[in-house]
């Protein structure tokens, strides 16, 4: 499958790193949930139009109603400026440097993956953990995104098969069914 942003080797390295942050145990983890696809979708959000920033509404279709999350919202010119700056970085362009230079997420990942090393994928798990511990700035960004990709709506690319939600017994986007009054008020 073609990726939106990552090269094949970057994709494999991010997938491997996420598998250390949210590992597979007797339950599936970040690898099985496709967390890397969530991150690829964020970094490559503008590879499609409208970009993969805000999923549609009101219903996902998982609890009735017609599914609308996959229809992403269009951005205004200013919103596009903000999200391109956040993702691509300010790249020396004056309109993106109003508040000073911005390190884009794409750069965070390119630099972070370089710091993890070209051999990261082939390392044993404890050495992968060592490299992640040594790169706190990148690991923090990666972990934040991994949590989003694990427990966010599947339309953003991660949480495939609702693995993240099933792991923790969370129903997810329950509209329009919602919960009954008994489900709200009574002990499970």
């Amino acid at each position, binding site marked *: 499958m073609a990726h939106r942003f990552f090269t094949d080797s970057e994709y494999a390295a991010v997938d491997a790193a996420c598998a*250390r*942050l*949210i*590992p597979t*145990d007797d*339950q599936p*983890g970040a690898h099985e949930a496709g967390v890397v696809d969530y991150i690829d979708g964020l970094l490559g959000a503008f590879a499609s139009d409208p970009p993969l*920033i*805000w*999923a*549609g*509404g*009101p*219903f*996902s279709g998982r609890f009735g109603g017609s599914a*609308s*999350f996959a229809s992403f*919202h269009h951005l*205004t*010119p*200013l*919103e596009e*400026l*903000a999200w391109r*700056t*956040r993702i691509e970085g300010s790249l020396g362009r004056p309109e993106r440097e*109003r*508040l000073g230079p*911005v390190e884009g997420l794409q750069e965070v990942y390119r630099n972070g993956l370089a710091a993890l090393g070209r051999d990261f994928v082939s390392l044993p798990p404890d050495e992968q953990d060592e490299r992640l511990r040594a790169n706190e700035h990148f*690991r923090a960004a990666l*972990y*934040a995104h991994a*949590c*989003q990709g*694990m*427990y*966010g*709506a599947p339309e*953003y690319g991660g949480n495939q098969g609702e693995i993240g*939600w099933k*792991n*923790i*017994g*969370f129903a*997810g*986007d*329950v*509209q*329009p*069914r*919602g*919960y*009954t*009054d008994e*489900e*709200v*008020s*009574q*002990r*499970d």
Partner: protein
Amino acid sequence: MTRDFDVIIIGSGPGGSTAADVLTAAGRSVLVFERGRNRLVELEPPYNLITDYSNDEIKFMVRHFLGPDPWLDPRTFRPSEDMGDRLHVGDVNNLPATVGGGGVHADGKLPRFREDDFRLRSLLGPVEGAAVTDWPIGYDELEPFYAEAEQVVGVAGQAGANPFAAKRSGPYPMPPGPPMYGSLLTVAAAERLGYHPYPGPTGANSVPYDGRPACNNCGFCSFFGCPIHAKGDPVSPLRRALLTGRAEIRPDSFVSRIVMRNGRATGVEWLDAEGERHEERADQIVVACGAMETPRLLMLSGLEHPEIGRNLMFHFQTISLGRLDHRTHYHRGRSVSHLHDDHIIPDPESFTVAREAGLPWIKGGMVEHCGPAHPIMEASTYEWGAAHKTMMRESPFRDHLVAMCMQGEDLPQPTNRVDLDPAIRDARGFAVARTTYQPHRHEVVASKYHAAKLEAILAETGAEWTTTVTSPMLDDNPFGITAIAAKIPVSKHVMGTARMGEDPATSVCDPWGRLHDVPNVTITDSSVFPTSAGYGPTLTLVALAIRNSRALLG
């Protein structure tokens, strides 16, 4: 001189929407400006409701769907003037910038203030370093407007359930929604300890109301727009105003200046989505941008009253947490189903504690019985690695928690204020709001005093452990957090900055929200509050918006 509208309203949140409703019902034509996008109601007849909101944690809690984008529209922050121009640029207590404003994201706890809240100075006396004052109006005068506001928004509640509540002229328009399981546990424990919890008055429909459906308990309430419009966000008053044919809403339109001549406003200067500058004229201007953006606009317009921006207040949040041995499922229901008010009334022991701290008195705030609901937020609090999986399954910080959040009264301090940042500009090129804020010793002492009581309730509930965090964070917080961002209050209850009063020397606007200096400009948001009470501000600001808009009609 030509003009197309009687009144220009700046801001489409609860204050602006209420003004639009009142003014159009009285035959006036209004133009409502909103800097954010419209995701609430179609702007062409028959004005159907839009369905862009959804149960989506990424969209609402990570990616600023309701705006403002903190990079496009930043604010700046510093705890005090001696700490440099600013220590933080970005999100400073952002309320939504979208049609419907702060009404959209709230879980809509809508209590009235108590009679005493309007007479704090007379009842309890002054506090050194704080500008404690009485309101220029009393509860009795506001009561009919409270009753009307509850009808407009659609409040579900139970009259008589709260022994401390102010006197009411009638029942709530709807009965309360279903109680949340975790809250039933903390409510029972609180009652055993002598407190008086009650179903919190809530702006979410418990039955079909005003053409909108009953809430179905989806749990994506606080921080989210309602996908089925069961929430009492300002959609009803806005839509009613549109249906008169006398209202126009202009989203993506930023008002940069109120134009004034000879002590009267003549109109506004505004920018469209492409950044093109325009002007509109009107006889009257209503300002309802919220307690940070309202003083910013007044200052961008060149007004120089020394009180503009001063006495910025939040609520000092004291959040006590307890872990139970089984699941509390706070992801079902309306975020909060019960409140108790006991901490609002100073008890004899509190006067002793206050005296020992060199204060004349301390006062707490309403306590919300609540718990966390969102797994991405939870996940971010755990360590990575194998522990992540274990913690997420066991869910000590979400699905086993019960919490009490006290919205403590924040005393007005002239040094806590909003002004124009001298260097930072928004994406359209205008100076942003700079906040200078730190809590008074009163809030700190009150928080510690009441936190012990809140933790005792959680222990009585059966919690295995309890702890307390505050916002803003104090230096002795249990997590050793020192980040400047933690000193920015997270309470979205923002007040003060254009306080009302009789005396033009000490207040920005008169008791009807009219600027002393420019009487055809009326404020209908929480900027006008002289003190913060210990209750969510929305119902009170809607009641004031009804009253001030009627006064504007003459």
